Every structure is written in C-alpha cells, then in structure tokens.
C-alpha cells in the first residue's frame, strides 16, 4: 500500500529525515517510536503533503508516486492524518466541516454525496461508538476542546472518512485510560484486510490495545531497528539512550 | 502674530552669525511656516488638539526672539539625585553645560556648527518653525562599539525670566554600529506660558540600542511640542518611555522607521493629568523591513477636566512580511469632565503579519474596589492602589532597573 524509498527531507537546510525506508502492506499495522525531535511528525506531515520541506526520494501509495499530489488529492485517495496538535478553526462548525470533508472525498471517489439527514445519521452512529459527546460537534472546530477531546475528534473524523491508510501522530498522548481504550477500539474496528495504519507513539501502552505487526525505531531521521511488538517492550525497558 | 514673527526673525538673523547656507535654509523654512501657521483642528494629525487655538488661548503676545547672549544660572538642586549621569543642560533654550565625565572622550563626539538638513516631514509646520528659529543645534555621535557607561540626562530648564516666548531646540543623535545610549530627558519649568518646540532626530545603526525616557512631571503652564524622528537599521532596538504629566499642554510625537530587518521599537507611556491639562501622544511606527517588531502600551489617569489623546499608527509595508505589531491604550476617567480620545490605526499591506490594537476607557472597576474594600481598605486607599497598579504595569516595561526605580520614585512623589 505504502512504499517509502530513500526519503530525505530538509527544512531550512537542516536535515530531518535521511535515507528513510518503509513499506506498509494492506491490512498491516506499523508502529513508529522515537525520541522527541527525531522526525516522526515531519514524516507524517510529508506523507500528508504539507509544503515547506525540501524532499527527495520516493513515496508510492498504491504503486503510484504521490509527490506531485496536493494534500487534498492524497486525502481523496484515502490517506488520513490524525494530527499531533489538532488545529482550532474559529467560527467553523465541526459538523459542517465534517460534512464538507466527507462529501469532498466521496465526490472525488465518485460516490454519492450525503445529504444532511444521512450525514447526521452517520455521525450519530460513529459518535456513539466512540462515546463522543455529540453536543460538541455543534461547537466551533476544536475551539475550546480539551486536549483529549481534540484527539478524540480526530479519531471520530477518521472513522467517518473511512481512509485506507491512517497515520496517527501521538494520538494517545493526553488521553485518559478510558479514552485510550475507545480510540483503540475505533482503530481496531477499522482494521480490515485492506486498511493499514501507521501509529506514532511514545508509549508501549497503546500497543497493548492495538497489536502492531511491526515496530520501528526512528532516530535522527532514519529507522535504526525494526521488529515485532516485542521491540516496543525492549525499548520501554532500555530507553533510547542505551538502545543504540 | 505674523508681524511679530517677521520682526523677530530678522532680529535673530541680525544678532547671530549663521552661515550663508543656513540663512538661506532658515529663510525657506520661515516662509513655509508663515504660509502654514500653527496647526489646527482641520489637520487630521491635530484633530483632537487644536494647537493654534491652545496657543492663542494660553499665551498672550507670543514672541519668537530670545536673547541668548547672557548665560543663565543653573539651579543645581534640580539635578537628579542618586543616579550618576552625564549632562546636557539647557536653560531657557540656551545650552549651559555639556558634561560627559563618565565616558571615554574619544568615543563621543559633539558637533554644533552644522548645516541644517532638509527635513523630510514636509508637512509639519512646527518643524519649519523649529528650523527657522533654532539657534545652535547639536549633534551627538556615539562611536562604533561604544556603550555609554552612564545615562545621559538632557535637562530642559526654564525659569521665571522666560515669559510668553517660543523656544526651539534641536538635537540629533547618531548611534553608530553596536553602540548604546540611555537618554533621559528631564523637564523642569518655573516659567510661565511659553511655547517650547523640540525636535530630536535619532539615527540608530546596526545592532545599536537607544533607551529614551522623557519625563515631564512638574506642573507648569507651558505649551510643548516634541517631535522625535527615529531611523533604525537592522537588529537595532529603541525603547521609549513617556511620563506625560506636568505641562499645561504637551504633544509628544514619535515617528519611527524600522528600516532594517529585525529592528524593534517599544513605546510606552503614561498620562497622569489633572486640572485643565491636555496632553497627546502620537506615534507612527513604520514597518519597512521583514521581521520587524513594535510594541506600544499607553495608559492614562484623568482627573478634574483634563484631556488625553492617543493617536497611534502602525504602518506595514508590503515588503515587511513577518511584522509583529501591537498597540494598547487604556484610560481611567475619574471625573465628569475628563475626556479620552483615541485613534489607534492600522495600515497594512503585507499578509504574513501579526498586528493588533486595543483601546479601552472608562471608570475604575467597581468590582475591584469592592473586593479591596472587603479586605479592609477604604475607598480612597482602594482607588489609589488600583490606579497605582494600573500605571505600574507600564513602568514595569522599562528594561533599565536603575531608571525604572527612579521613575517609580518620581511618580509616587506625585501621587
């Protein structure tokens, strides 16, 4: 599904990712762990098409190079990023935002756009699954949401937009235990044979709930070790310092 | 008035020995002033303070000629105590003392035999007046890489010999690269109903720092206008603090051009006014290069029938991306006939900027007074505490702690 070859990314002449390689097959769950500043968010930003980086290398999504695609075109193809720091957009109603996004994506995929009633039905269902307080969806997007609520809102959006590749950038940080479980359930329910996940996290705990197929350790812009779930445990014990 | 002006101007030329070039420039400026006269309400800049009217109301028989031949006595008692400093002393518009005891002599240069420069504020009639009538004007140069060890205090003293005169002063200050200067301008007026017109030009070169504190604290019946033109090169900093309190009328106008990248300007001021005083602060901060920053905080407390005006403009050129501009003015009106007028203005031609302004005026917060009274203070004490806190907020912005304490002392003496 996703093949990253020799990815190199600089920002303001500072090298952030270097010789980065990763392959995610349909249905797989990959976790990336790495110290602060190692380039995890940079990776997810680049996958989502954020501008401002000097990039070279290759990113293939479903065997097509996506370098030339705009952010929204990648979203239309099914790439979803749950941001580490979800933004506040004043004045924009969360429900309306969600409906607009969903219909933009459906339209791009050649599916029928949902009308207000169908949409609300869908949202109600998903919100209930994720135990997300529906009333909050009538507020301005992320404005006045608590840190955890913002993260949950990202997962709600994920489950409504139903992407093929979901990138979760530290979605677990700031969540309480119950919320963590709910988020994990959300992910697990989307886990199908052709949906893949890239989960960025600092904590082994999340991986107890979402069993990854692979764990990668990212340091100074490249993957220095890959392995199975046991790698996360090892990391938790040793810390990054002694890991090398 | 025009007759008087002409007579006084000729007398000035007769009794002084200006260079031919200067006489020519002075004549031109004089003509320009005659044509425009004192500014009035019809000019946007003077909308809230009609100087023409203020002068004719307050000063009878204004005359423009000053006999500067005889030295004046300096009343030493008014020198600032407990702060070692260099001095420039003007008495009744005449320079009486230049003293840089604390500094390395070859790092400072003072020029006084200068050709007047053409001012680029073509519309400011008070600058015409200044250029026409200024006697000697001074230029202070702080050499590259030199920081003055002690502050410089410019004393502007007038005594009771001076009545109904127009005094014009001009000082240019140039800070060469990597230099710094702390400048305190200190007014002391015992004179009656004069019009004092001061023009400063600052040239702050790369990486240099100017800190300028202007203190007008002694109650007096003079009418004043002070215009500072500041040019700033990259990485330079200017910090200005205004204590606007003593004169019957004073308008402090500051035009600051942030010409170089990362230049920043801070303008903070307080009005403490009573009786019939009418003060104005007008600023123009022009962001002309990338990454420049300006910050302005002006507060006022008005009693009796006093009036304060703040006109502050932030201009951002289309080149000046990443500008950060902030401006806030607040006033507390304590009496029925006080008045606070504000015109906080933004003019912006670049899109990647952060600019905001705010203005608020009104009464003391009754809830806060109530809170303090519930803790045992009486009304007057509560009021005083709140006002002090309100003003202290501005004084705290002063970055030099010695001068900050000096100003705190001066202000609490007044309260």
């Amino acid at each position, binding site marked *: 599904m996703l093949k990253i070859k020799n990815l190199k990314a600089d920002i303001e002449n500072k090298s952030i990712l270097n010789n980065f390689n990763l392959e995610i097959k349909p249905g797989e769950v990959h976790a990336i762990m790495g110290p602060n500043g190692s380039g995890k968010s940079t990776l997810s930003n680049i996958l*989502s098409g*954020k*501008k401002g980086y000097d990039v070279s290398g290759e990113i293939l999504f479903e065997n097509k190079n996506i370098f030339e695609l*705009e*952010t*929204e075109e*990648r*979203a*239309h193809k099914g790439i979803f*990023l749950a*941001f580490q720091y*979800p*933004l506040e*957009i*004043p*004045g*924009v109603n969360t429900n309306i*935002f969600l409906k*607009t*996004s*969903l219909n*933009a*994506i459906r339209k*791009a995929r050649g599916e029928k756009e949902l009308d207000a009633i169908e949409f609300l039905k869908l949202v109600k269902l998903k919100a209930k699954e994720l135990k997300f307080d529906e009333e909050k969806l009538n507020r*301005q*997007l992320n404005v006045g949401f608590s840190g955890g609520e913002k993260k949950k809102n990202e997962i709600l959006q994920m489950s409504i*937009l139903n992407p093929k590749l979901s990138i979760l950038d530290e979605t677990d940080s700031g969540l309480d235990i119950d919320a963590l479980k709910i988020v994990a359930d959300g992910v697990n329910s989307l886990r199908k044979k052709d949906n893949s996940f890239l989960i960025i996290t600092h904590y082994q705990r999340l991986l107890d709930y979402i069993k990854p197929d692979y764990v990668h350790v990212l340091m100074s812009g490249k993957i220095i070790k890959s392995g199975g779930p046991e790698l996360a445990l090892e990391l938790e014990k040793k810390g990054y310092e002694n890991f090398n | 008035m025009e007759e008087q002006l002409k007579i006084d101007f000729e007398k000035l030329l007769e009794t002084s020995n200006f260079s031919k070039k200067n006489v020519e420039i002075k004549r031109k400026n004089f003509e320009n002033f005659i044509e425009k006269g004192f500014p009035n309400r019809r000019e*946007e800049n003077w909308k809230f303070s009609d100087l023409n009217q203020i002068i004719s109301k307050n000063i009878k028989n204004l005359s423009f000629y000053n006999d500067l031949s005889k030295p004046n006595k300096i009343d030493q008692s008014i020198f600032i105590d407990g702060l070692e400093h260099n001095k420039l002393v003007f008495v009744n518009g005449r320079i009486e003392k230049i003293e840089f005891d604390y500094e390395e002599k070859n790092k400072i240069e003072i020029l006084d035999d200068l050709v007047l420069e053409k001012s680029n504020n073509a519309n400011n009639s008070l600058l015409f007046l200044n250029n026409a009538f200024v006697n000697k004007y001074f230029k202070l140069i702080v050499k590259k890489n030199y920081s003055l060890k002690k502050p410089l205090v410019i004393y502007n003293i007038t005594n009771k010999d001076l009545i109904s005169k127009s005094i014009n002063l001009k000082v240019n200050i140039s800070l060469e690269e990597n230099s710094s200067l702390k400048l305190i301008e200190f007014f002391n007026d015992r004179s009656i109903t004069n019009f004092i017109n001061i023009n400063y030009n600052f040239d702050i070169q790369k990486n240099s720092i100017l800190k300028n504190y202007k203190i007008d604290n002694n109650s007096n019946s003079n009418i004043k206008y002070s215009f500072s033109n500041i040019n700033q090169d990259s990485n330079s900093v200017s910090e200005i603090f205004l204590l606007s309190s003593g004169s019957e009328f004073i308008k402090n106008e500051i035009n600051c051009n942030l010409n170089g990248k990362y230049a920043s300007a801070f303008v903070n001021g307080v009005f403490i006014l009573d009786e019939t005083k009418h003060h104005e602060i007008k600023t123009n901060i022009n962001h002309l290069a990338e990454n420049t920053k300006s910050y302005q905080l002006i507060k006022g407390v008005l009693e009796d029938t006093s009036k304060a005006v703040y006109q502050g403009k932030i201009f951002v050129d*289309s080149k000046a*991306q990443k500008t950060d501009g902030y401006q806030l003015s607040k*006033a507390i*009106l*304590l009496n029925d*006939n*006080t*008045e*606070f*007028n*504000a*015109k*906080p*203005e*933004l*003019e*912006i*031609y*670049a*899109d*990647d*900027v*952060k*600019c*905001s*302004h*705010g*203005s*608020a*005026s*009104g*009464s003391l917060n009754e809830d806060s007074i109530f809170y303090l009274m519930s803790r045992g203070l009486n009304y007057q004490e509560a009021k005083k505490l709140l006002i002090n806190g309100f003003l202290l907020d501005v004084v705290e912005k002063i970055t030099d702690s010695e001068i900050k304490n000096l100003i705190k002392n001066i202000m609490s003496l007044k309260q």
Partner: protein
Amino acid sequence: MREKQIDKLKDYKYGFTTDIENIRAPKGLNKEVIEFISKAKKEPKWMLDWRMKAFERLKNLKEPNWQKPKYPKIDYQDIYYYSAPKSASEKPKSIDELDPKLLETYKKLGIPLQEQQRLNGIAVDAVFDSVSVATTFKDKLNEVGVIFCSISEAIQKHPGLVKKYLGSVIPLTDHYFATLNSAVFTDGSFVYIPSGVKCPMELSTYFRINASQTGQFERTLIIADKGSYVSYLEGCTAPMRDENQLHAANVELVALDNAEIKYSTVQNWYPGDENGKGGIYNFVTKRGLCKGTNSKISWTQVETGSAITWKYPSCILQGDNSIGEFYSIAITNNHQKADTGTKMIHLGKNTKSKIISKGISAGFSDMTYRGLVDISSKAKNSRNYTQCDSLLMGNKCGAHTVPYIKNKNPESNIAHEATTSKISEEQLHYCQQRGLNPEEAVGLIVNGFCKEVLQQLPMEFAVEAQKLVGISLEGSVG
C-alpha cells in the same frame, strides 16, 4: 463584446442587461431635471420645494475627499438622473400587468414577483433604475396596518408621515452626496410599522441598475412606531459595464420608544472587471435614529460588490437605554476599494453599542474600516464594544483600520479590539488533509471568520451571503 466579458467574468452572474425601452430625463443636473423628476413622480409642491432647497445648498458644498479610495472626478452633468422603463410610467395596478421583461429580469435575479412564485414570508419592493416597479404582499401587510410601498407612493398617500420624518435623521445639508440625493432622489422604499405591531414578514427591497450612464439615487425611510418591530433587507445588483456608475442612496431609520429595526444589506453591485474597469461607485448615507427610550437599531451588511464602497451606517442613540449595533462583512478583490464602518453617537443614558466588523482584502484591493464611537458627557453609564478584524490575502492588497474613539463620560466604558492576520498555512493544510481543495478550504475558513456577522442575517439570506463570500474571493488563492 458583452458576451466575451461575461465569459471572462462568469462569477458575476447578475451581469446581464435587460433590453427595455426607457423614459429618461435629459442628461445633466439642473433645475429643469429636478422639475422633470418631480413631475414624473406627480409630486406635490412641497416636495419639489424641498428638492430645490437641497439643490441650492448643493451649490455651496464640496465633494468630501478625506476617504481613502480616490476616484476620478465625476462629471455630474454627464449622468442621467432619471431613467424608468416605459411600461412602468403608469404604474400597473397589479403585478400581473407588469411588463413580462421586468418579471423575467427579477426572476433571473432570483426574486420572482408573481403571486405563485413569491418567496415565502418576504415582501419585496422591486426598484428598477429610478422607479419602484412592484411591491408584493401589500394586502397582507395592510391587514396589520403596515405600510410598505415605494417612497413616491408614500409622498402622495402618506404626506404627513413623510413630511415629518424625511430629512429628520439625515439633514438636507448633511454632506455633498446626501444633499445631492435629497435634490434628485428617484425612488426607494417607505415603511411604517404602527405602534405595537410586529411586522409579520421580512420586508425587502431589491435594487437593480439597468440603464447605462445612469445614476441611482434611492431614498428609503423606515419608521418603527412605539413598541413595533421590523426586519428589512435590501439587495442590489447591476449589469457589467465598462463605465463607472454612481449610486448615492440615503437611508433613514427612526425607532420610537421600545421599537426595533433590523436592517440588513447584501450589496453585490457590479464590482468592475479584474483590471478594475467599470463597476459601481456606491456612496451611501445610512443613518438610524434611536429616538425613543429602549429603542434598538441594528445594521448588518455584507458588502462584496461595487468598484468603490463608501458608507458608514450609523446610529444616533438619543433615547435612554437605546441600543445600536453594526455587523459588517466587507470583501474586496481585484481592484475594488472599500472605506466603510459606522458611527455610534451616544447621547442618552445607559445606551449601548456593539460593532463587529470583518474585512477581507485580496488581489490588488484596498479596504478601510473607519468608525467613530462618541460617548458624550450626558451619556451616563453607556457602553461600547468594538471588534474589527482584517484578513489579508497576498501582499498586493491593503487593510486599514481607523477607529476614532471619544469618551467624555467617566461612568461609561469603551472597549475596542482589532487584529489583522492571514489564513494560516496550518489551517489550510488541516482542511486540505480532510479532502477540501484550497478554494473550498479558504471559503470555509473565511466563512468561519465572518460567522458572527453571518449569524445576524435572516436565514434565507445567510445561505446566499455565505455563497457570495466564497464567490467574491474566487481566484484569490494561490
């Protein structure tokens, strides 16, 4: 030629012209033309005298020039001051008798006038060039005593009310354009809501400039008697022409004790092409007088059209406890210029005002917010809150904020806040990550930015205005 232009500028969908036979006054501004207008409208003598008085005063007035947008000198002798569809010279008794071409025009503009197709719950007065051609739902309004008709009709049928209030808020000699309007005004709407009546439907006037080289000088007068309520909405469009056309309207509102007037404008005059050629000069004087105690006047405007917009809908808060509000969205793109804002003059005790202004400039355009808040020494315990935010798109445009704030009352409080910013890359990226294209993303974020104002509009128009906000900014993202 016209076809081509329309092709290039398909976003201005109101740019068509209607081929219709006109009756026009001779070109130019003089006594005869004013007499012509007065006669065409079958006005009583007092009205003509009033116009003449304004005309006399006009001779001593100069066009103001303190505004930011400068415009080429207007040749006032080169304008037609009166132009009316021939078929409307005898105003038809019923809408069904109306010239089918006119009906078609309004239908195309989305304002069907015929009985079967009328907008629900909205009574419309349709003004075409210099005359009102139709007013809908008149009978229904009559039942509750609401008078809603053209000002020309009001001058004939309700001279008492007109005489009493016309010019009572905007004096005859207020300033150049207001005085010009007083001399040559042609048509506009008149509304009277009797004491205690809550007007059962939205009232609306739709202004259309059609004829070329014609100025539109409309005059609107709304009186809300004690304890009444009315919500009024105006919309405006014009064909695309290479020339600049002048629109100098006067709008006066009077609210008596406990009355409330809500006045909304969606202004979409032709803005000129992308090179700044053509477009309407929209120089409008709008003023409301909160005459009675507890009265309230609320202005909402969405200004997206016109080459130059120059207007300050204002409130004079004369009655104790009266309230004035101003909600504005102004958008300029290409070479458009706007200098707009409000004045809140606090005279009575306990008066309150609120100003929310959102300005968006894009392209090569220039936007100024100019406002005055004046709390007089008698206006004890008054409050003002002002917030004006600007959004810039690109660095070829400008945003200017010029508030004048005067407080002479120690028991009153004024608070003013203003910000200037741009749409952040992060916000755009976030929306795009969720599948929106940049234009949609900008539209969404800008609508969010404007939300507080859009909320003030009556439901039916909020949707329209929201679309307009998006359309006006088309082509400005990049």
